[in-house]
């Protein structure tokens, strides 16, 4: 249904996204995980045609076969809300602080769906109920700063769902929600995807949520998709060193409390930081932090190697002739 074909997003010299390719079929659910600042939101914005003005986009963005990469704002606007909708990562940035949340949610219903005010109001209340906002009727008249962070996030979810989009890009939709509510939202999204054949791109750092919400997963690092495949398989048997490190950093029960020396236990991390975009290694973006680095990593970009069960990973260690196979270390 929607396809990104070698899409790059550049801020001057810096590449926020490097030739990323992605296919999303109608009704499919794809998860995207990765290090903070690795380009997940940028990928979502590409699907919406909303990359910031400062960026240069290259590659093809196809919606139902039509390339929209260079399309004008007017063309994109026709597709937004109905063909592709997005739940933005930061609710406060996406909501107009001057308008009541009810008006914000009702606007697309009035404009795109041609509903009357009363109908739009009823529908907004129904949507608020669906996403679990308490006392929906009264909330309609509140301003964004008068509701809690999680409620704002759910307003945004309701807003994205107003026009029954064909593809929903959910950028960290559950960050401000407690486990119970998050579960409920994920169930809602999965149900919508199944009953309405809605495609879902679920961007999250919450691996448990991704596991629940999606069928396939793409792991990103430094603007590259480094590993992809069926969600359960990738999360249980990761092959790319970054994915392995990421899964190892999950806080577990063993990290709890204090160590023998009375100091609090430190959590496991991947050593080092993501280098700034303008300073990324030319080859594998993860080189420099990777514990199993070999000679060609820094200079040559690894290609995607197809592994069993539809899993794919871009790592030199997985090449048939490589010295030690990366998967072996887990």
């Amino acid at each position, binding site marked *: 249904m929607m396809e990104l074909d070698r899409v790059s997003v550049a801020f001057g010299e810096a590449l926020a996204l490097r030739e990323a390719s992605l296919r999303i079929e109608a009704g499919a659910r794809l998860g995207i995980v990765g290090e903070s600042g690795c380009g997940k939101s940028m990928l979502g914005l590409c699907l919406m045609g909303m990359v910031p003005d400062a960026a240069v986009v290259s590659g093809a963005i196809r919606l139902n076969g039509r390339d929209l990469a260079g399309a004008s704002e007017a063309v994109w606007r026709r597709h937004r809300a109905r063909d592709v909708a997005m739940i933005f990562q930061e609710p406060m940035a996406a909501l107009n602080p001057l308008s009541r949340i009810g008006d914000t949610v009702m606007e697309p219903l009035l404009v795109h769906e041609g509903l009357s005010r009363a109908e739009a109001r009823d529908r907004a209340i129904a949507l608020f109920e669906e996403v679990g906002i308490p006392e929906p009727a009264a909330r309609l008249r509140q301003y964004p700063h008068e509701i809690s962070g999680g409620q*704002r996030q759910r307003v945004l979810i309701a807003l994205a769902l107003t026009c029954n989009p064909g593809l929903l890009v959910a950028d960290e939709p559950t*960050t401000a929600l*407690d486990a119970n509510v998050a579960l409920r939202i994920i169930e809602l999204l999965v149900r919508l995807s199944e009953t309405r054949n809605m495609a879902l791109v679920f961007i999250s750092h919450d691996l448990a949520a991704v596991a629940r919400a999606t069928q396939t997963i793409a792991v990103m690092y430094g603007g590259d998709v480094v590993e992809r495949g069926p969600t359960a398989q990738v999360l249980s048997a990761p092959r790319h060193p970054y994915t392995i490190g990421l899964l190892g950093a999950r806080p577990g029960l063993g990290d709890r409390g204090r160590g023998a020396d009375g100091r609090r236990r*430190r*959590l496991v991390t991947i050593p080092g930081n993501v280098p700034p975009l303008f300073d990324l290694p030319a080859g594998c973006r993860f080189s420099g932090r990777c514990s199993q680095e070999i000679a060609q990593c820094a200079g040559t970009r690894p290609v995607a190697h197809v592994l069993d069960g539809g899993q794919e990973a871009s790592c030199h260690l997985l090449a048939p002739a490589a010295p030690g196979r990366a998967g072996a270390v887990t």
Partner: protein
Amino acid sequence: MSAPLLEVRGVTRRYRMPREALLRSPPVLTAVNDVSFVLERGQTLGVVGESGSGKSTLARMIMAFEAPDEGAVLFEGQDINRLGAAALRQARQRFQMVFQDPFGSLDPRRTVAWSIAEPLRVMRAEGIDRRIAEALDQVGLRARDGEKYPHEFSGGQRQRIAIARAIVTRPALLVADEAVSALDVSVQAQILNLLMDLQEDLGLAMVFISHDLAVVACICDQMLVMRHGDCVEFGDTAGIVARPRHDYTRSLLVASGI
């Protein structure tokens, strides 16, 4: 015996909701209802609870952005709502907050370095540039990133900028409202380690608001569970995780897979 760093005594906060009809009196929502706790230096209190249960409201009252309708917030034994404007500004240099919404808490028209330096300028601190660079480095960003504006960062990077601003003054108390919620597990672990370092090296106390029970269980000494504005459970983290007394706590633990 000196007073505890922070004491919250039976605070209650009510909001008026929008009126449904012109002549009807507006309904009242009790966002926080009679919550009390004591936090000692170097300790961490985890606040968890349902979305909309009043966690951020509690944080705003601790920070004296809002006065409680009932009860009092005592910082080092002083009721912060009774302090005069100048004394309050003085005291504020010792407690900092990381807001739930990083984008909303950074002035869009100011560079990141400017925002981080703001509390330092108020304190007339020395070596501001060095301290900005250090704070940025601690949260995994570059000194050069300071010249950029908030919209040029990713969500998680902005969240780390907000953390850098809050720790740059080396406060005695940090109120962190969902401060690591937008970070992937690896960066999140780095930040949590950083906060634990600060705690041990400087005796930083934290009120750590989060919905992520796994994180709270890892780093908090005590834990407070909120629901509909009420405190339903309060006590030692290990004890609550092992033997939750309230149904709601139990359901949270189940849902977050602990």
